[in-house]
């Protein structure tokens, strides 16, 4: 069963078509890699999948229901995301940022319980961010902040996780740790859609890769086929002899 599906989805902004008649499905428990050049529309596709943007035409389905028919909180209980973010204005601490991930589970007055704190601490241990708990965004490196946002998404305890360049600021050790977390999550049945230029990460986990070019579906298939050198060179508009990436 497809837990998320895009059906002929297009999205235009200021007259420019960023996503163009795109259709694909994500099966429960799958890891789908989104690959494509800068500006191909990968982040926009993830935003459409989470209902943060509405398609100009076509529709996004969540659990075979139109995403637009879900309340925001219902979506948040099912889908979490890790995004690349602009700077944060006020000095929220890492622990406070992670606790924000518990929002869909909080009651009417939105007071967190000891159980929410336990979950926050558990995911912070998992992402090696517990020692950063009292630090503000200003006092963290880009990589540390990225791990805090990953922890926040994990605290949401959703069944679907959208990752937008999750390893972009991570060092080798932390990227490997994230890869392990992804493996653990998948063993627990998590569905993951990941837009990334980290082809090693995609190769390791993906059951399906979607190659996007100029907002359109360029290729959909197994990682071995989709990440084949000639196909990628074509998608990225480069000569094969310019290739330096290890296979």
């Amino acid at each position: 069963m497809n837990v998320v599906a895009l059906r002929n989805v297009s999205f235009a902004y200021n007259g420019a078509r960023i996503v163009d008649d795109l259709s694909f499905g994500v099966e429960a428990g799958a890891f789908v890699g989104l690959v494509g050049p800068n500006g191909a529309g990968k982040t926009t596709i993830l935003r459409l999948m989470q209902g943060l943007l509405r398609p100009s035409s076509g529709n996004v389905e969540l659990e075979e229901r139109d995403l637009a028919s879900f309340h925001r909180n219902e979506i948040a209980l099912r889908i979490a995301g890790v995004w690349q973010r602009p700077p944060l204005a006020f000095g929220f601490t890492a622990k406070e940022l992670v606790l924000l991930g518990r929002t869909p589970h909080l009651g009417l007055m939105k007071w967190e319980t000891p159980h929410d704190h336990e979950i926050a601490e558990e995911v912070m241990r998992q992402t090696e961010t517990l020692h950063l708990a009292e630090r503000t965004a200003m006092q963290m490196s880009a990589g540390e902040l990225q791990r805090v946002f990953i922890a926040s998404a994990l605290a949401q305890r959703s069944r679907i996780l959208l990752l937008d360049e999750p390893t972009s600021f991570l060092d080798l050790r932390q990227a490997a740790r994230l890869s392990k977390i992804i493996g653990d999550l998948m063993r627990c049945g998590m569905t993951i859609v990941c837009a990334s230029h980290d082809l090693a990460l995609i190769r390791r986990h993906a059951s399906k890769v979607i190659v996007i070019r100029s907002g359109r579906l360029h290729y959909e298939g197994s990682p071995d086929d989709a990440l084949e050198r000639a196909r990628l060179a074509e998608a990225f508009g480069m000569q094969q002899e310019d290739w330096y990436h290890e296979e």
Partner: protein
Amino acid sequence: MSRFWVSLTVAGALLVAASIVSLATGAAHVPAGDAFRALFDPSSVDATTVTIVRSIRAPRVATACIVGWALALAGLCFQSLLRNPLASEYTLGVSSGAALGAVATAVFGIAGAVAVPTGAFVGAIATIAIVLVVAHASFSFETTSTILAGIIFTSLANALLSLMLTLIAPDELQSFFFWFLGSFASAEWGMIGPVAAVVGLLSLVLMGHAWHMNAISVNEELAEQVGISVTRSKLVLYGVASLLTATVVTLAGTIGFVGLVVPHVARLAVGVDNRRLIPLAALSGAALCVMSDLAARTILAPNELPVGVVTAFIGVPVFVSLMRRRGR
């Protein structure tokens, strides 16, 4: 005891102390003990003392309290929504817009008990709507341009206020002066009760949205993805902040810098979680206004300064230091 409870206790103690000194201070000296007894055991002190304390000074202290409370909360709300510590009802022009609305109802002879508060609220809501639209036609609320639009609108609203004041007979001019600089002198119990009820209710609504304010002030997209209806929450919060401002303006005219300075100081004390900031800012705002009013009445006694002058003397240096910190 946590930092929050210590801060709340200090703010509460300051408010109580400033209120007692305020009740005791004035043209006629009343010992603090007598002032206290006049409030809670009026038969034990003489009738003149009871009149001075209960009918003249207490309503004034109560007004200062409510005004400071509401201004601090409105400022906190605007700062969270715009993710900018320089935002407040005063810098965004909402206070001036409310004053303009209130004066317009008087100048154009619109009668009725709720005419002035309604005019103030319409002025406040219209101002924030105009400022947000001007700042960003696409409603993405870019914060720096919102502050700039607010400053520009404040100038326009003040010019229109001056224009309206030229239409008023000279003998009425004095009573309109307070819309510019604020005063607690016209305080009376009849008005204080309903205003306190409105401010109390709005404070509860704000407390119910404290977590939403947290998420929005981190990042609107993050707020959306953790399940918060950002557009709905922002509409509620802009409405609450504008209503708080309009209520205050109706009661005491425009008083600047309280909404700007108090949330910032509270943030230094207890961090950025609005669930802790709301009660602390409210109490601190009340304390600041009672102390400012006390200073306004005593610095040049028997003459009285407009309270807005005192809050500006306190607020401007803090505002400048904030700008310097942001510039670094």
